[in-house]
């Protein structure tokens, strides 16, 4: 019993280490983007928020997709730890979603003059966020952990299948709602990164940012998974 708890604590510690490394990298990115890269022509300083925005969206979508994939694995392998991972990933996904939905308007205001616009990234993230919220609402209304895992996996898989439809919908919807102010290149469907023609000096920090956020995701999820595992072990100890 104690060995398992120790392992869980080790996982948490490892997760924290990864998170700290990722956060340091993030700080580095900020320095790089704010201090060392030239301002983008059309949007000036506010463009820098792309370095946080786009990777966050990527991380949120990755989190969501993984919840679905883990759901499939759960039905195949029947391992309850997979559900712990799904829960961790969903929580982290919501965190990243919150990040975009709050930084989005902050960016939109100086660039477009409005607090909200239906650009693909924001719209997509909003829908994802609502799906996450529904996912947690369902989980919290269920008391049996096995049922929670099972239904969570079902919703996760359905959500995974829905993602391509959301991309299509967002793209088609956005093509009918032109963005308010000029200077914004049209976004291609699918990948929300809206700067295919960025010069290398601006692209490099962006790619680094993606890597950082991926690492941040891994760090958060590992930590959260470890916490969930420890919590579950404590519950089991109560009932044994």
């Amino acid at each position, binding site marked *: 019993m104690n060995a398992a708890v120790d392992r869980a604590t080790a996982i948490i510690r490892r997760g924290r280490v990864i998170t700290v490394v990722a956060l340091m990298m993030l700080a580095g990115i900020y320095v790089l983007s704010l201090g060392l890269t030239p301002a983008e022509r059309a949007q000036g300083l506010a463009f820098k928020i792309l370095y946080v925005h786009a990777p966050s969206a990527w991380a949120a979508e990755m989190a969501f997709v993984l919840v679905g994939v883990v759901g499939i694995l759960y039905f195949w392998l029947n391992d309850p730890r997979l559900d712990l991972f799904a829960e961790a990933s969903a929580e982290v996904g919501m965190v990243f979603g919150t990040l975009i939905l709050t930084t989005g308007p902050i960016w939109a205001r100086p660039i477009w003059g409005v607090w909200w616009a239906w650009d693909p990234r924001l719209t997509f993230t909003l829908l994802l966020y609502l799906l996450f919220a529904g996912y947690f609402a369902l989980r919290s209304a269920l008391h*049996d952990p*096995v049922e929670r895992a099972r239904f969570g996996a079902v919703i996760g898989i359905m959500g995974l299948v829905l993602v391509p439809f959301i991309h299509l919908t967002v793209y088609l919807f956005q093509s009918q709602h032109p963005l308010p102010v000029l200077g914004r290149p049209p976004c291609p469907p699918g990948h929300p990164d809206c700067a295919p023609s960025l010069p290398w000096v601006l692209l490099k920090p962006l790619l680094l940012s993606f890597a950082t956020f991926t690492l941040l995701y891994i760090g958060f999820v590992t930590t959260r998974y470890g916490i969930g595992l420890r919590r*579950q072990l404590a*519950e089991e100890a109560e*009932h*044994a």
Partner: protein
Amino acid sequence: MHVERLERRFGVVPALRGIDLTVGAGELILILGPNGAGKSTLLRCAAGLARPYRGTVRIGGRDVQTDPAARGLIGLVSHQSLLYEDLTARENLRFAAALHGIAGAEQRVRDALDTAGLTAVADRRTGTFSRGMIQRLTIARATLHAPVLLLLDEPFTGLDAPAAQLLRRRMAAERAAGRAVLCVTHEPAEAWHEATRIVVLIAGKVVIDQPRPADLERFRRDYQELLRQ
């Protein structure tokens, strides 16, 4: 029916801890045990309603979890009636017949209503039925498809003496017809003389599995003693 190494959990709480049980034709088994021993859980796993954590239940050689046809061999009478209030008795049975793919359903339904003594009220909605009538209809529904294994979960609850007597007689008739009957109850006296075997479940494990002894009083005493421990 063969039950092998059956385990079932609710979350982290184990309900059945490795049950092995074999039931043959013409047996009438009473499953006894205190509340929470796992009796209803065992029945639900046997009926294919609950998925076990580990282990298998085989009916007539078919795994009840993977082979839907295995369910056609089982009839379940639980304390819930499984009936639709807004449908008449006849309609309820007709529906059950359709679900089980019974040929010549109309005649079978008529016969079942007759055996249950419900022909007079066959076209009344079951929402208006008394407890005894519902019990009879529930049994009719459970036996409509001529299952080889009949599972009863605390069927004597809330029955008055004549209804209980009818039930006992029905159980004995099923056994005589070569079926296997498993009856979960907390009071051994309810079907003592009809039973051929006694199984006692305590905390998810089979503690006693023996042919029904002749002396009810003696068994009762030993049983109480066992529960006290």
